[in-house]
Structure formats: structure tokens, C-alpha cells
């Protein structure tokens, strides 16, 4: 388990996964997983947003086109959004985005949307485990050139 190298090659490749977690449910769920000392693969990096509805599709496309292996968006369960309906936008946008990814030649499985509440530390850990394994099975993401999105600072 304690592989000394996280680089590609060696005894296998370690996917790098970007996670967006909403402040109220999923980030708190991730905190609870930590407080509960639930052990999980170390492939995810969380960016905290106030609501999953903040995640612009461009972020997902940018991340994948820059070579990250997967993007996971986590929000409150439908009907439980702290802002009433932000996660409904996430859900609809997610479906469209998967189509778009397929169209541009990126495996749509590299992008996933899941719901984790503040009390679901165990579900957070399970989700990280499952998604990591699914993305690991896809192998390294090798984006085609020419579809880089805006660089930070362009705006």
C-alpha cells in the first residue's frame, strides 16, 4: 500500500482527481470522514466552493484538458441544497457536460457528479474510493492538443 512513488510508472499509475465540494454538505462530509479517520486513496484534491452550482463547466473542461485524470463534483442531495436549488443546476449541467466531453473525445466517466451530505462521512470515503478506482481503470488522461481553455488571468 505505501508506495513510495506517486509518479507515473513504477508499480502503477496514480490518477490525479480534482474534486469540487460544496461548503455546506460535501466539504463537511469530507471533514467528517477525516474526523472519523476513514482511510481512503490519496488521489483527490478538493477545491471548496460555496455551492456545487458555482462549478462552471469551463472548470471541468480546463482541468481535463490540462491533463488531470478526473473531476468529481460533490453537492448536497437533491432537495437539500443550502441555497434551495443550486444542486439542480449542477445535475442538469452535468448531464449536458458529459455529452460535450464525449463529443470532444474525453471519456465522460472522467467527470462525475455525486451527492454527499454533511453527515455522510462514510459515503464521502466510499465515493472517493469508487471514483478513484473507476478513473484508475480508465488509465491516464491524455488530452488532445488544441483544446486548452482560458488561462487564469485572461479575464
Amino acid at each position: 500500500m505505501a508506495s513510495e512513488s506517486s509518479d507515473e510508472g513504477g508499480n502503477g499509475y496514480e490518477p490525479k482527481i480534482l474534486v469540487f465540494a460544496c461548503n455546506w454538505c460535501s466539504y463537511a462530509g469530507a471533514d467528517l470522514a477525516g474526523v472519523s479517520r476513514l482511510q481512503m486513496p490519496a488521489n483527490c484534491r478538493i477545491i471548496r466552493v460555496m455551492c456545487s452550482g458555482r462549478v462552471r463547466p469551463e472548470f471541468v473542461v480546463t482541468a481535463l484538458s490540462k491533463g488531470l485524470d478526473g473531476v468529481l463534483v460533490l453537492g448536497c442531495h437533491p432537495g437539500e441544497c443550502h441555497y434551495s436549488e443550486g444542486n439542480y443546476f449542477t445535475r442538469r449541467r452535468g448531464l449536458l457536460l458529459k455529452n460535450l466531453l464525449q463529443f470532444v473525445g474525453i471519456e465522460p466517466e472522467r467527470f462525475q457528479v455525486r451527492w454527499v451530505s454533511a453527515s455522510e462521512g462514510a459515503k464521502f470515503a466510499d465515493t472517493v474510493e469508487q471514483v478513484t478506482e473507476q478513473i484508475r481503470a480508465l488509465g491516464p488522461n491524455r488530452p488532445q492538443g488544441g483544446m486548452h481553455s482560458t488561462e487564469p488571468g485572461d479575464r
Partner: protein
Amino acid sequence: MPKTRVGVFVCHCGNNIGGVVRVPEVVEYARTLPNVACVEDNLYTCSEEGLSSIREQIAEHGLNRVVVASCTPRTHEPLFREACEQAGLNKYLFEFVNIREHCSWVHMHDPAMATQKAKELVRMGVAKARFLEPQEEFESSVFPAALVIGGGVAGMTAALGLANQGIQVHLVERDQELGGLIREVRTLFPAGQATEEVLQPLAEQVRNHRQITVHLGSEVEDVGGFIGDFDVAVKADGQVNNLKVGAVIVATGAEELKPTGLYRYSELGNVVTQLEFEERFKRGADVPRDVVIINCVGARIPERTYCGRFCCTTAIKNAIWIKEREPEASVFVLHRDVMAYGVQIEESYRRAMELGVRFLRYDPENPPQILGDGRAEAVRVQHQLMGKEIVLPAELVVLTTPLVARDDNPRLSKMLKVPLGGEGFFLEAHLKLRPIEFSTDGVYVCGSARYPANIPESVSQAYASAAKASIPIREGVVRAEAITALCDERTCSACGNCVEVCPFGAVELQEGRFGRTAQVNPAQCKGCGCCVAACPSGAMQQSGFNDRQLLSMIGALAEEMTGGVGE
């Protein structure tokens, strides 16, 4: 514009982070990041020593951004922001990196991966920090009333604590009577005082207080809103009553575990729980001559790992009660350990032994057996000191079970957007430092809703939650975090997507200096950022979570991969 100078503070958190993540390596790595002017590690960055170090480094190195890599912003962000402010730095120039809950605690067996992850998280945090901007906060008013859910000892005490400060309180109780679970208990530990003697004056004060409105036979149906401005729907007899409050206290208590399937409970009529024992003698039943009390029933087992905290006290109290009424009675307490903590409980434990109550330890691997057909007649138990089985006659078997979380907790937890722990009790914001608060502002907890609490504990927690809840109410204003949306009128095309998606009606299209554009009312904006994601031109941005900041984090995470070099 002055050069961006970032200070990075990496916390060991004692051994919590430093025991897994190789902190010195993270520190050395952080020094190589752009715009980083100073890096240091602290044993505890949140200690006074750590905080004053942040203040000193801001002054010494002219820092204009601060990154702390430690625990979670949900508990510690206000503290570090305050330290920045004290050093004259706008608190929105602070960025939090979580390397404890999200790293060291969940990758305990893989220091290499955890260290690597911590470095990347720090890199992302520094990347965002470089684009942070100072912000001004918006103030909103607090409705001067509070909701207390639950009319037991904790809820009544909390209600009085608020009402005696002149704050209007709505106390919602599901039953038709105030008092909660303790009403079922006949006498109280340690003096054997009748429960009513404690409960009645308390309930009387609550009922007669002109600042308290008691809603009996009522349940909270729905809670919306935020600190200072909660909308609460309370349902009674099919009627819904809408209330407005500024703060909420959860005091819904817990219930006794009914140990179906254990020790032939519910099969044999004379195998009862402690509360059923109380109920029997409230009704004036004869005191039995042979009683066996079994402790830790359904507690400290794999399915329910916690200790019920005062079950041992209850067993001691009731054993003494029997012996005082029937000195010839044989009373055995079968236990795993006797948790007689504190002065008074230890004294009662001794008194029980003096009265002739016998305490015998049993082995959970080889638990006592209830013997008898149709009713319990005896209990067989392995006597650990004698090393042989003995049979104790039993007219009555009393099972001491722990309090368990109420079935209703998940519903309430979702409504209030506060978490439950693994055992189903409400989970406080911080085990040690914020024991009666939640991370969600304006919601507090006291009594057995959080974890089994006896009366003195419930009362002190109730005082604490009332004191905490009264702070925003008495201040009258809360400052909303400056994370609201803002429209750049020059690039807005007035498509109206933002108006459509805003759940709070905070965005409107208005005529302005640049023609018709979207305008955000910061009093109504709650900072979800949905409008930002919906904006096709990038005109709409969210303070503290703008596109440039978030894209820079993504870029920082991807950097290594595109470079293709390991570290």
C-alpha cells in the same frame, strides 16, 4: 500596486498532521512557490504562539496574503482571519488549506502520498491566495427571537436562559406536556429526590414567563433561512404556524434503547429496562425480593460502541432504592466495569455495597443467561473470581440500556443543515472547542440530543447554548461573509441567465451607466455563486471564489502533470 507577498504557515497540529505528513518537506517545497515571501511551521498554528507568529511575520515580511495549511475552514477560519485583521491585513486576504481532515487523518498509512498531496494542496492554496482581494462585509439585522426545539430539562433551561435576557423564545415540544424523558424517572440521583420537585418549578417558570411562548403537541415542520433570519414552520393539530427567529437551539433529547432480542427482553414479562422499572414502582408495585440488574445491555458493543455515560449511576441509584425499601432483598448488579466517576457517584457506589448490593463483573464473551419458562426465574453467570458458574435467583431482571438517538434526528438534521455523528446524535462543530455549536451559524445544541447527558450536564450545556445564541440576537446585526456576487457592467450583455437562476431574487436587470445590465443586491445575495456559473460572458463574479482564483487553483494542480516531472 505593491508586490504580492504570500506567507505560508504549515501546522503540525501536534502529531495530528506532523505524524503523517512530512511537514519540513512541505515547508521547503512552499518556499519554492511564486510570490512566497516567508514560510514557517508551527506546532499548533491556532495557539496563541502560532497566531502571534502570523501577526509578526505579516509585519516583518510585509506580507499581503496569508495561507495557513492546517485543519478545516469550517472550524478555524474565523480565528486565522482575525489574526490577519489584528495585524492590519484585510481578513479576505487569507486562504485556508486543509491538510488534516482531508489529508493526514485519511491517509494515515501512506506518509509519502499524504506529503505529496499536502504539497499540492499548499500549491493550490498559494495559487488562489495570489489573486485574493480585500473585501468589505455587508451587515444584516437579526430578528430578536429564538426557537428552542424540545421541552425537556435542556430545552426549558435554554429557553429561560434566553428569556431572562429579554429575548423572545418559542419553545416547541412534541408532547402535550413539558419535561421530556426525565418525566418517566421516579427519583433523581443522588439524593433520591422526587423528579417532580425539580421538574415542576422549572416547567412552571417556563409556562409563566412572558417572553416564552410554549408550543405543546407541536413539531417543527420546516426551517429555512440563515442566522438572524430563520423562517420556521411549526405544525400542531394539522395547523401550520409560521415563526421568524434569529437563532435556533436543538434540545430534542434522546430515548432509552429497548433491547429487543437481548436477554429475552420482550419475551419474558419480568425482564424490563431501567425506565420500565421506574414506571412499575411509580404505579406502586411491590418491591421484589430478588433482583438482578444487568449493565451495558446494547452498549459498548460493535454495533453501538459508546458508553451511555450515566447508566451505571442509574443502576446504582435503583439498587440503593430497592435495598432501602427491602433490606432483605438480594440485589446483584452484573457489570462490565462500574463507571462511578466523580465524587458523588463513587460515594453512592460505596453506599450501595455497604447496603449489601453485590457487584459482579461478567465477561461480554460469555454473557449472563436468563433462566426460566414464561418468566425469568434465575440468572446464570460466570463468576470470574471463583472461576465457576453461579445461579442467582431473580424475581425481576432489570436491563440497563443506554440512551439512543431519536429516529427523528435525520429529518431535523437535514432541515437545519447540521450534521449527525455515526451513532445518530447531533455532531457539534468541534469536540473540544465548540461543544454546543454547529458549523452552521445561528444553530446550537444542548442536552442528550448531542450525546447522553445527565441533568447537571444538560443544564450547563443549556446555559452555554443560550449564551451563544444570545450573542447575535443581542448584537442585533450579523456581518455576512463578503462572498457575494458582483457584476461587471462593462462586459454584461443583459442576457438575464443570472436573474433566472438566482434562488433569492437578488439579481435584477437595471438601467445603469453602461445601459441595461445585471445588478446584485448584496443584502439578498447569499453567496452561492450559481449566477456566476450561468454567466456566459464572465461578467458575473463571486468575491473570494472568482473564476481567476478557481482557475488558478486548477492550473496549479495540473502544472506538475503537464510538466510531467515528479518531485
